[in-house]
């Protein structure tokens, strides 16, 4: 009892590893979709496109202003109550929907800030040599904004990976759900959860390395 049961922990590693891909899939798909959505929102907000701008503001306000777990329950249990056909939304889909909308709301704001943060003189210079709006965005503003937004976007991705641990409440057995059930069978809570914690940690650490590499690449133009 007082000593760590190392054999149990080692035995648990291959079992829990089989659930890691699902955790990464949930976060990976969620991140790609959230990025697309967030870019659209940010552009709508920066260009102040009428109607869409107001709708986006409400969307961001709601998904940033309510807990992710509440949103997951709304998608998974709430919607089928209104429209029974929506039962076809399975746990995995509902989790991805929740992660996408929740995190796109946060990410839209940091992308918008990055775009707005690009110095106005850059825009003026580009326009003065006859660039179109599209060229201005693609060649001048977005490359500079990407560099600014990257660290915060990476933060959200890391947060999203850990947020997938809520999915077991919707019946999706991902890394955390598998760990909870194993711990319930063995009552070796510390051993089970420390194995899971180390797995999350390693994944996030690898992402930090990736972020570091990307930052160096994006900073090339600025280093002397």
């Amino acid at each position: 009892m007082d000593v760590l049961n190392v054999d149990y922990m080692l035995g648990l590693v291959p079992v829990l590893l089989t659930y890691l891909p699902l955790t990464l899939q949930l976060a990976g798909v969620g991140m790609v979709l959230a990025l697309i959505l967030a870019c659209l929102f940010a552009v709508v907000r920066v260009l102040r496109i009428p109607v869409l701008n107001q709708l986006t503001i409400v969307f961001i306000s709601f998904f940033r202003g309510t807990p992710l777990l509440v949103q997951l329950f709304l998608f998974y249990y709430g919607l089928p109550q209104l429209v029974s056909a929506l039962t076809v939304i399975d746990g995995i889909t509902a989790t991805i929907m929740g992660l996408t909308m929740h995190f796109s709301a946060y990410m839209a704001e940091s992308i918008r800030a990055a775009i707005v943060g690009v110095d106005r003189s850059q825009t003026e210079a580009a326009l003065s040599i006859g660039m179109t709006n599209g060229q201005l965005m693609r060649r001048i503003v977005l490359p500079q904004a990407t560099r600014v937004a990257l660290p915060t976007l990476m933060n959200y991705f890391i947060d999203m990976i850990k947020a997938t641990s809520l999915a077991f409440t919707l019946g999706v057995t991902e890394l955390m759900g598998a760990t909870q059930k194993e711990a319930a069978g063995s009552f070796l809570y510390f051993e089970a959860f420390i194995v899971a914690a180390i797995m999350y940690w390693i994944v996030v650490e690898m992402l930090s390395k990736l972020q570091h590499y990307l930052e160096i690449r994006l900073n090339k133009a600025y280093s002397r």
Partner: protein
Amino acid sequence: MKTLLINTLLTISLLASAPLLAQEGPLRVGMSGQYFPFTFVEQDELKGFDVDVMNAIGEEMGREIQYETANFSGLFGMLESGRIDTVANQITITEERQKAYIFSDPYVYDGAQVVTKKGNTEVESVEDLKGKTVAVNLGSNFEALLRELPYADQIDIKTYESNLERDTALGRVDAFVMDRVSASQIIKEKPLPLELAGPTFSQITNAYPFRDTEAGRALRDEVNQALATLRDNGTLASISEKWFGTDITQP
């Protein structure tokens, strides 16, 4: 990742046609997978008394059983929204639940039990819970049982999603309340310093809940029939003997 995307798209396109899909698939059974020894996981294998009984029912009905595990607090939502057909997680029949669901015949008869950390002399019966902090599982019937006690307002009830045995052993709460059968089992088999405090204080009967719809009622009747057969031919008793060394399926 690609399949997930396709899945998502398929799901959206299926929304319109969903009600047309056939009903007769496997029987979808929800459980927490976190309630030793009724439902738990060891080395990725779902096991327990409730798994064995459900498998026997499925065999009797000639239907495959598909287990869906989720946190306990999500199970009734899954039943309500039609994602599972019933819950096999020692669901106690209560008035409140009977308003929303219909129940099969009981398949477990048990009592509520106070459990404390080993050596706790302050709490030796349910009456001693006055002024104490007591843990129960979130959404379980034991919270309601505690609230029915005449001195309920003097008990600080803490609800847990899981791991309340551990918190009691750590001394974060004075006691927890659970059914006698699984409490005894936990004390016997798991390395936690816990002990039963006094006799049971309430009779409970556990059964399978179903949605109160035509399909739900038909399914309930089928399950009842299977349960009766399993009771008569001794299967229920032998599954109980295997897990508990005693027959908990009789009143």
